[in-house]
C-alpha cells in the first residue's frame, strides 16, 4: 500500500476540485457524497498503510515517497516528498478518521446551507493541506500545509461571510497565524543556514551528532519554530484568534479548531524532537508557554457563557497541556494527548453543534438548561467526552492527561511547579466542563420558545428542520447522520486511552513504543528514577482535585443556580477580567493595531508619502515653476533692459576672463 500512499493526497484534492469547480451544478447528495468518500478513501489508505507497516521496526518503519522536485535554487532544494513513519501515520489516522466523521456530520449539519459545495470543497482542501503538513518530509513542505490549513481555516471561519464578525474572525485568524508563520519561516531559514538542508532526515541526522547545548543556534531555531507553533496552536500571546474562530460552522470548529489544525504546533515540536531535545531552554520555553496558556485559558473558560467559546478556551488550554508535555521532553505523551483530545474535543464540539441545531442556534448556555431529556444521545455522548477531558478515571483523557502531569513532574526538564499548576488546571478544566454540562443539560429549561436567530444562517436549514417540526420550538435530537459520528467519537473517547497505559499499570505503553522510531534522533536524557508509588500518589491527588471540581460545579450550577451570580458579584473585578478574556484583544487593539494603523495613515501615508516624498517631487516642480516665473521677469519687454542684459553679459565675460579665469 505504501507505494500508493500518495493517493492520500489525491483523493481530497480531487474532492476539493470537483466540488469547488462544478459543485454548483451538483445536488447536495453528490456534494456530500464526494466530500465524505474522498476522505474515507484517504482514511482507508492510511489505515491499510498503517497496518502494513505496523510490525516494522527502526529505519524500516520509515519510508519516504518523493513525488517531484518542488523548489530548487542554488544550494537550496525542497522536494515534494512524503515521509511515512509512525508519527505521521498516527497523525494521519486522526486527521482522516476524525475528518471523515466530521464530514459525515457536516452532511447533516450543513444541509440546506447556501454554498454547500463551497463548504465541502474547503473541507476537502483542509484535509489535503493537513495531510501535506503531516506527511511532509521537510520543513518547507510542512510549511505548505501549515499555511494551507491556515487558509482553509480562514475560508471556513469566513464561511458565513455576510456576517461581519465572521469576516473579521477569519481575517484575524489568518493574520495572527501569519505572525507565527513568519517565525516558523525564519526558523526554516536558520535551519537551512545551519544544516544546509531542510529535509528532516538530513537535519535530524546532523543534529543528532550535536551535543545538548545551552543557548546557541539550536535554541534560536527551536524558538523560531515555536513561534510558528504558538500561532498555529493558539498559545499565548497569539491565542486570540481561536475563540473568535468559533464564528465558523460548528463542524469546522470541531475539525480544525479542536481536533487537527490547532494541534499542528504540537506535532511540529514533536517532529522536531531531535532539535528541541538538544535545546533545553527552548524546551522550558515551550513548557512554560504551554502551562501559562493552559492556566489562563482555563480561567477564562470558567467565566464564558457561550458554549462554543467555552470549548474554544478549553481547546487552548488543552493545547497548552500538550505543549507542556512536549516541553518537558515527553513527545509521546504530547502526541498521546493530542490524539485523545482529538476524539473528545471533536465530540464536544459536535455535541455542542447538535445542541445548537436543536435550539435553533442558541449558543448562550444561560439560555439553555434541561436539555437532557430532549437530546439524550447528545447528552450522553457529551457527558462521556466531558468525563474524558476532566480526567475521570478510565476514560481516555484520564490516561493522557495523567501521563503529561507525571512527565511534567518526573522528567528532567520538569518540576514540581509544573505538576502543581498542571493539576490545578486539570481541576479548573473539570469545573468549567461540568459547568457546561450542567448549564446546558441540567436544571430548569431557560430556552426561549420563540428564539429565532437573526443573523447568519439565511434559510431554513439543518437536519432537524427537514421533518417540518420548525414551528414547535421543542428541541429535538438531530438526525442520525449527526448523532452517529457522536457515538463513534464517544466510543473512541472511552477506549483511546488504552493504547497508552501508564507504566505503573504494568502494561506497555504501546503508543509510546510505536512512536519511538519517529523520535529516535531525540537526545537521550538520563531520567531521574521515580517509583510507581510516587506516580500513583500524584495521580490520586489529581483525581481528587478533579472530583472536587466536579462537585463544586454541581453545587453551583445544579443545586444553587443563583450562587454563581452571587459569586460573580462579590468578585466582580476578577469576574469581569475573566469574562473579558483578560482584555487581551483590547490590549492588542489599543497598543498595536490602532497605533500602527494611525501611524500608517497619518504619518507614513499622509505626512511622509504625500507630504515629504511626493511633496519633494512636487516641490521641485513648483520650484521650477517659480524659477520660471522669476525668469520671465527678466524678459521685461523693454528693449533698453535687453540692451542692459547684453551689456552686463559682456561685462561679466570681461570680469570672468580678467578676474576669475585667466
Amino acid at each position: 500500500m505504501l507505494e500508493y500512499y500518495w493517493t492520500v493526497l489525491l483523493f481530497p484534492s480531487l474532492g476539493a476540485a470537483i466540488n469547488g469547480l462544478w459543485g454548483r451544478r451538483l445536488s447536495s447528495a453528490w456534494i456530500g457524497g464526494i466530500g465524505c468518500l474522498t476522505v474515507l478513501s484517504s482514511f482507508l489508505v492510511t489505515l491499510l498503510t498503517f497496518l502494513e507497516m505496523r510490525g516494522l521496526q527502526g529505519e524500516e518503519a520509515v519510508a519516504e515517497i518523493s513525488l517531484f522536485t518542488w523548489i530548487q535554487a542554488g544550494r537550496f532544494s525542497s522536494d515534494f516528498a512524503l515521509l511515512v513513519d509512525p508519527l505521521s501515520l498516527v497523525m494521519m489516522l486522526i486527521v482522516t478518521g476524525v475528518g471523515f466523521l466530521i464530514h459525515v456530520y457536516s452532511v447533516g449539519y450543513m444541509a440546506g446551507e447556501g454554498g454547500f459545495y463551497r463548504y465541502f470543497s474547503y473541507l476537502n482542501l483542509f484535509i489535503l493541506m493537513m495531510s501535506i503538513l503531516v506527511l511532509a518530509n521537510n520543513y518547507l513542505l510542512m510549511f505548505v500545509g501549515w499555511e494551507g490549513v491556515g487558509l482553509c481555516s480562514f475560508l471556513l471561519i469566513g464561511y458565513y461571510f455576510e456576517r461581519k464578525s465572521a469576516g473579521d474572525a477569519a481575517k484575524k485568524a489568518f493574520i495572527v497565524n501569519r505572525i507565527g508563520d513568519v517565525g516558523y519561516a525564519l526558523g526554516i531559514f536558520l535551519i537551512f543556514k545551519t544544516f544546509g538542508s531542510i529535509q528532516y532526515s538530513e537535519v535530524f541526522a546532523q543534529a543528532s551528532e550535536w551535543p545538548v547545548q545551552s543557548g546557541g543556534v539550536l535554541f534560536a531555531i527551536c524558538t523560531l519554530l515555536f513561534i510558528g507553533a504558538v500561532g498555529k496552536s493558539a498559545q499565548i500571546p497569539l491565542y486570540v484568534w481561536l475563540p473568535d474562530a468559533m464564528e465558523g460552522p460548528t463542524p469546522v470548529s470541531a475539525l480544525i479548531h479542536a481536533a487537527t489544525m490547532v494541534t499542528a504546533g504540537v506535532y511540529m515540536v514533536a517532529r522536531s524532537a531531535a532539535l528541541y531535545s538538544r535545546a533545553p531552554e527552548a524546551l522550558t520555553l515551550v513548557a512554560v508557554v504551554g502551562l501559562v496558556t493552559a492556566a489562563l485559558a482555563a480561567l477564562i473558560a470558567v467565566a464564558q457563557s457561550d458554549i462554543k467559546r467555552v470549548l474554544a478556551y478549553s481547546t487552548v488550554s488543552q493545547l497548552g497541556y500538550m505543549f507542556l508535555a512536549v516541553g518537558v521532553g515527553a513527545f509521546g505523551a504530547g502526541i498521546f494527548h493530542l490524539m485523545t483530545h482529538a476524539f473528545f474535543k471533536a465530540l464536544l464540539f459536535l455535541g455542542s453543534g447538535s445542541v445548537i441545531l436543536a435550539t435553533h442556534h442558541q449558543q448562550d448556555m444561560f439560555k439553555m438548561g434541561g436539555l437532557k431529556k430532549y437530546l439524550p444521545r447528545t447528552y450522553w455522548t457529551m457527558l462521556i467526552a466531558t468525563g474524558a477531558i476532566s480526567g475521570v478515571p478510565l476514560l481516555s483523557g484520564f490516561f493522557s492527561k495523567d501521563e503529561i502531569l507525571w512527565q511534567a513532574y518526573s522528567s528532567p526538564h520538569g518540576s514540581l511547579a509544573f505538576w502543581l499548576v498542571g493539576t490545578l488546571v486539570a481541576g479548573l478544566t473539570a469545573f468549567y466542563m461540568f459547568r457546561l454540562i450542567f448549564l446546558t443539560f441540567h436544571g430548569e429549561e431557560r430556552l426561549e420558545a420563540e428564539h429565532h436567530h437573526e443573523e447568519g444562517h439565511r434559510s431554513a436549514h439543518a437536519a432537524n428542520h427537514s421533518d417540518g417540526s420548525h414551528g414547535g420550538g421543542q428541541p429535538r435530537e438531530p438526525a442520525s447522520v449527526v448523532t452517529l459520528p457522536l457515538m463513534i467519537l464517544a466510543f473512541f473517547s472511552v477506549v483511546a486511552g488504552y493504547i497508552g497505559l501508564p507504566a505503573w499499570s504494568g502494561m506497555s505503553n504501546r503508543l509510546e513504543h510505536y512512536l519511538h522510531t519517529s523520535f529516535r534522533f531525540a537526545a537521550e536524557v538520563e531520567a531521574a528514577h521515580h517509583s510507581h508509588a510516587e506516580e500513583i500518589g500524584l495521580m490520586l491527588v489529581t483525581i481528587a482535585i478533579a472530583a472536587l471540581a466536579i462537585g463544586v460545579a454541581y453545587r453551583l450550577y445544579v443545586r444553587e443556580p443563583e450562587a454563581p451570580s452571587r459569586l460573580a458579584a462579590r468578585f466582580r473585578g476578577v469576574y469581569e477580567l475573566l469574562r473579558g478574556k483578560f482584555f487581551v484583544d483590547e490590549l492588542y487593539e489599543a497598543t498595536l493595531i490602532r497605533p500602527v494603523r494611525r501611524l500608517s495613515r497619518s504619518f507614513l501615508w499622509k505626512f511622509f508619502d504625500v507630504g515629504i516624498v511626493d511633496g519633494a517631487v512636487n516641490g521641485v516642480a513648483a520650484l521650477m515653476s517659480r524659477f520660471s516665473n522669476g525668469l520671465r521677469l527678466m524678459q521685461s519687454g523693454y528693449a533698453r533692459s535687453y540692451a542692459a542684459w547684453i551689456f552686463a553679459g559682456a561685462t561679466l565675460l570681461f570680469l570672468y576672463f580678467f578676474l576669475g579665469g585667466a
Partner: protein
Amino acid sequence: MVPTTHYLILGAILFVIGALGVVVKRNMITMFMCVELMLNAVNLTFLAFSRMLGQVDGQIFVFFVMTVAAAEAAVGLSLIVVLSRRRKSLDVDQVDQMKW
C-alpha cells in the same frame, strides 16, 4: 606721434558712452544714434591698430563698417518710422507689447 593707447582709450570711452546711451536713452532715434557712436568708436580702434601695424587692412575694415552702418541706418530708420506711426511715440519703453 600720439601713442596708439590714447586712441584706443578714446575708442573705449566712446564705445562705453555709446553702449551706455543705448541703455539709458528712451528715444528710439537717439538710441540708434548711440549705436552709431559705438561703431565709430570701433572704427577709431581699427584705424589705431591699422597705424600701429602699419597696414591698410584695418582701413578696409572700417570702410565696410561704414557701409554696413549706412545700410543699417536705412533699415533702422524705416523701422523707427513704422513703429512710431503705430505707437504714436518715439518712446522705446512704449514698445513692450511682447514680454514675459
